[in-house]
Every structure is written in C-alpha cells, then in structure tokens.
C-alpha cells in the first residue's frame, strides 16, 4: 500500500489501461505535450506517443464525437474535458449520440467511451467555471455516471470504466485532485455500481457524493462530539443509483440528510429524496433535509461564493435540524 494523490491515481489508471490494451487512448485539450491541466496524463505522451495521447483543438463537441465514433469500432477512448462547464459544448455528442446509440441500434453498436471532467466550485472561479451538472447526466438514460471521491475509486473506477461497454461519465472535482489515500500496489478495480458506507452510525444518515462526502465526514465528527452517531454514505454512482443501500441505511437510522454542491432544483438531492419517499417513507422518524448550493450563478466575490456553496457548518446545522436539536 502506498499513499498517492487523486491526480496520480488517475494517471496510474491511464497508464495501466493503456499498457494493457493498445486500443485504449486518451484525448483532450493540453493532455499530451503539456501534461494535462490536472497532470492526470503527465508523462504518458512520451510513453505512448501522439497517436494515443491526443492533444485536441478546442472543439469539445467534435472531439468527443470522434472519440464516440472510434469507440463504435473497438477503440476505448478516455476523453478529458477541462471543466464540466465546457462539457456543455459536447452535450450533443454525449447525450444525443453516446447515450443513445446502443438503444437505437437495437443493441448492435455500443459506445464504450469514458468522459472525465471536474465538476464543482474551486476558488473564486466565478460563474462560468463553477458548474455542477451531475443532475443533467444523471437524468440521461444510456449513461453511467460516477463520482469517485478519493484516489482508490479514482483509479479503480476509471479502470473499470475503460473496460465496461457503456459510456461512463466520471465527475471529478477541482478541490479533490490533491487528496491523498492509500491504494494497493498491485492492480485493482473498483466497481461502477454501488453506494459505499464510509462511516457507520446509528442516529442519522448523511448522504453525499463527490466533494460533499468530505463535508459529511467532517460534520459527522462534530456530531459525534455532540453524542450523535452519524452514518455517512457516498453514493459513488449516480447512475445507476444504488437504492438498496440508501434504503437499508435509512431503515437503520430513521433520519436522513442529503448534501450536494449542486443547486437544488431537479437535482441529485431531489432524486434521492424521491427515492427515500418511495422506498422507505415509513422508516423516517423526522423530516429530511437537503443541503445544497444557492440557486444563483456562482459569484466571484469570496464572501458571496462562500455563502452560495455549502460547507461543513451547513451540513452540521442541517443534521442538528433533522435531529430536532435546533
């Protein structure tokens, strides 16, 4: 076991999968000669060459489409989009093509692409670099959507995504690339489905995904000193969603909070609430709470941005509310 950073975990997954299969390629802006905005492909250009580590022009929709076309004939492209905001340019090829080709060909053609992109707020990047669009991909049939929270999943899920025959959207986070975690030295895979209980507890379930898992974990520590035992659940996979693990946790704790960095309307939290209502309504002992971003374009100003984006305090206060303590 060795401790590595999130970006190194992604790099390792690329390296292993590219070594394993000559038809695995990576595409994106500045990923080759420049080494990648998040260093996720650093050094790989020299190792695999320009035909497999492909520096693309700034043409998100079409280079994604080229990756999709190649995937239809056996290539396994890992497409990096510099920021999820720019993925909006590629929605036609992602949502109208990749997500639907298997279905509209009656299962005869598949599109095993992986699209990786950071989606979340960083530090005062303002409205056009702070989008969180998980809910949009989560609501698209024909896609898999995953949110690895740490190096273990970042490496293991990317490797699984490359081998899986479906289009997989991997949503990362600018504030997670330097997070460290121990990972096995030998090759490992992490499954693309299933929520993970990252902290066991008995009084309340805090559900998060992507960066908000860390808010939940921090809040759980504070709740513990108040004598409240919080269970923390990392959704990991937004699509397909692991309803079973959500239900089991809520049936155990009878109280639930969902924390997300996305805005609330028609959001991931809204979907989780609907699932809870449908699957385990009678297990609830208290009204659930959603913690989410303010429904505004993300402001540049430090104080306003901080106000707009949920933090540990927000999750902690929300949990106290569910517990009836405030």
């Amino acid at each position, binding site marked *: 076991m060795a401790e590595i950073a999130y970006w190194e975990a992604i790099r390792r997954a690329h390296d292993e999968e590219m070594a394993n299969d*000559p*038809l695995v*390629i990576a595409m994106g802006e500045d990923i080759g000669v420049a080494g990648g905005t998040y260093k996720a492909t650093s050094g790989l250009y020299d190792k695999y060459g320009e*035909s*497999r580590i*492909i520096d*693309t*022009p700034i*043409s998100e*929709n*079409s*280079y*994604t*489409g*080229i*990756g*999709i*076309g*190649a*995937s*239809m*004939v*056996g*290539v396994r492209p890992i497409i990096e989009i510099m920021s999820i905001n720019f993925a909006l340019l590629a929605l*036609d*090829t992602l949502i*109208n*093509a990749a997500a639907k*080709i*298997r*279905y*509209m*060909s*009656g*299962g*005869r*053609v*598949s599109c095993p692409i992986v699209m990786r992109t950071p989606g979340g707020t960083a530090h005062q990047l303002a409205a056009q670099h702070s989008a969180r669009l998980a809910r949009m991909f989560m609501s698209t*049939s*024909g896609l*898999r959507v995953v949110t690895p929270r740490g190096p273990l999943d970042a490496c293991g899920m990317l490797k*699984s*995504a490359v*081998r*899986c*025959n*479906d289009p997989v959207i991997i949503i990362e986070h600018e504030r997670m690339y330097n997070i460290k975690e121990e990972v096995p030295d030998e090759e490992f*895979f*992490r*499954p*693309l*489905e*299933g*929520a*993970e*209980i990252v902290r066991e507890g008995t009084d309340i379930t805090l559900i998060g995904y992507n960066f908000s898992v860390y808010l939940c974990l921090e809040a759980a520590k504070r709740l513990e000193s108040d004598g409240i035992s919080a269970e923390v659940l990392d959704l*990991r996979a937004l699509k*397909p969603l*692991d309803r079973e*693990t959500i239900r089991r946790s809520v049936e155990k704790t009878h109280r639930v909070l969902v924390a997300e960095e996305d805005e609330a309307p028609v959001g991931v939290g809204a979907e989780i609430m609907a699932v809870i209502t449908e699957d385990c309504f009678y297990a609830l002992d208290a009204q659930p709470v959603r913690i989410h971003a303010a429904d505004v374009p993300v402001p540049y100003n430090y104080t306003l941005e901080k106000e707009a984006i949920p933090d540990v305090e927000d999750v902690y206060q929300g949990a106290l509310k569910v517990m009836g303590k405030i």
Partner: protein
Amino acid sequence: MKADDQKRLLREMIFFRRFEDRCFEAYMERKMGGFLHLYSGQEAVATGVLEMAKTGHDYVITGYRDHVHAIKSGAPAREVMAELYGKETGSSRGRGGSMHIFDPTVNFMGGYALVGQPFPLAAGLAMGAKLKATDQIAICFLGDGANNQGTFHETMNMASVWKLPVLFVCENNMYAIGTRIERSTAVTDQYKRVCGYDMKASQHDGQDIDTVMEAAKTAIDFVRSGKGPYFIEFMTYRYRGHSMSDSKGYRSKEEEKQWEKRDPITIYAAKLKKAKVITDADIKAMEKEIDDEIENDIIKFAEESPEPRVEDLYKYVLDDNPDPRWIGPLQNK
C-alpha cells in the same frame, strides 16, 4: 465496366426508387410512424460512391435519409423495411426507425437525426481504422445544410490535422428542408468551404452515375492511400418533400421539372440503351421483378415479422450482460 455490372447498377437504382416509393405508400397506410425522409432523385450519389468503396469493409455513416445508403452498404432490404415497420426483425430491432438504420455486420454505422452529428462520428470511425492499421476508410454522407453546423468546421479541421482516412460526401440538393442554400449559406459551392482546412475537395454532377463513380474513385483512392481526408460534393436534387409533412411550397414546379429531366435512372438507362447493353423490354422485366421482390419478399417479411416484446423495453439501454468485475455492485461490509 462490364455490361453485367452496368445492368446491376441500373437495377439497383430502380430498386432504390421503388423501395422509397413503396415506403411512401406504406406510410400513407400508416404502417410506419415518425419522420420518413425519402431519397428519390439522389440515387446516383450513394449508389455510385458506394460502388467504388469496399462495402462491408469500409465504414459508412449518414443522416436520417439513410435507407438507400444502408442497403447499398449491404444491409438486407427486408430488415430495413422491417425497421420502418418497427418490427423486432428490423435492422435496429424496431428501436430506431427510419432515421436510425444500423447494420454493423456490414459496417454501416448508422443514420443519425442530429444534423451534422455524423461528421465527428465518421472521423472517429476513421481514427479507429487508423489505430488498428487496417486499410478501411470511413465514408460520411451528409447534406448541404449540415455544413452550417459547428461540427463541420471542427471535424474538417481535426480530420485534416490528423490525416484521418475519411471521405466526406456532400449531397448538395440545394435545400435544407425549406430553406434554399443561398438564403442560409454565404458560400454556395460547398467544396470551397474546406479549403480553409487545407483539405482536398472537388465538385461534380451527382445525376450521372458514371461521373459520380469516376470522381468517387479518385477520392477513395486518395483517402485509402493514407494521404488524409477528402471532401467531395455532388450536385443533386430530392424529388419529394423533405419529409412526409412537406408540401414543397418553397420551390417552383419549373425547377422540379428541370431536375426531372436530369433523372439519374433515366440518364443511365438511356446510356445503356444507346450502348446496346439493355433494351426497354429488359427494363420493363427488371421493374416487374423488383416490384415482385418488394411486395412478395420485403413487404411480406416486414408485415409478418413480430413486434418487439413489451418485456424487452429496458433491453439495450446499457450492456445487458455486463462483467461483474467492472460493474459490481460494491459490497459494503
């Protein structure tokens, strides 16, 4: 070209015309739903270009006006018709319909409804061939209107920078639904538009299949030799409305008549008759045989085929037999 091949080509074009006419009838009888875009008038383009390609081996991709491209690529006509009927035996198991014919067994990689979307997909197919170091090329058929999409410019640039083995065939019928090309497009000669991407390009008559084949051969040889992409434009005309709901109020009867004088089937039939390859009686016999085949084999197959099962609604959304090593689900302790 041998006389037998010439006869076969004429027969194919007549077959495509009759096939589309029969689709029109079936649509009017409400045997088909959705949008239906017919290819009548443009037959020489797909037939001529694909005659010069290695069909079944090269990748072919196009828009929603796709029946003829699919069949000429090798997709069984019965399966295409069954698809239009929404049947389980259809090329896309009834899940795609007229605009989404697929047959990967002959490398026909689909028809797509989003105008301009096949450009990058085609370049991707070509990239796949290049990575696998095969001698395959990708051929992308699209209309004149598609060239106003961003994907056109983005893809021409990348195809050229990366020297991808892809042939873009522009079927310039001068209309995008009801908008005539001059009203939407600053440069009406489409082949000129790719010179900004340093790409080989040419423009030809699309109604004379001999011209189409000769031009296509040059382009295909160029692309297959690894020199990079090629953009070829054919001037052509669609006889029917854009789709079935189009009353063609945007163009004149005179214009239609002018183009009917340049009918690809009539032109080729006249040439073959003049060369004494075929007689009027032969053509009559051919037409009868085609109508028989369409009615007694193709339509019959479509009519008699089963509907998809309602239980199978969720099939084909994701891989139906995924490998649990990659999928899981994760087991919590």
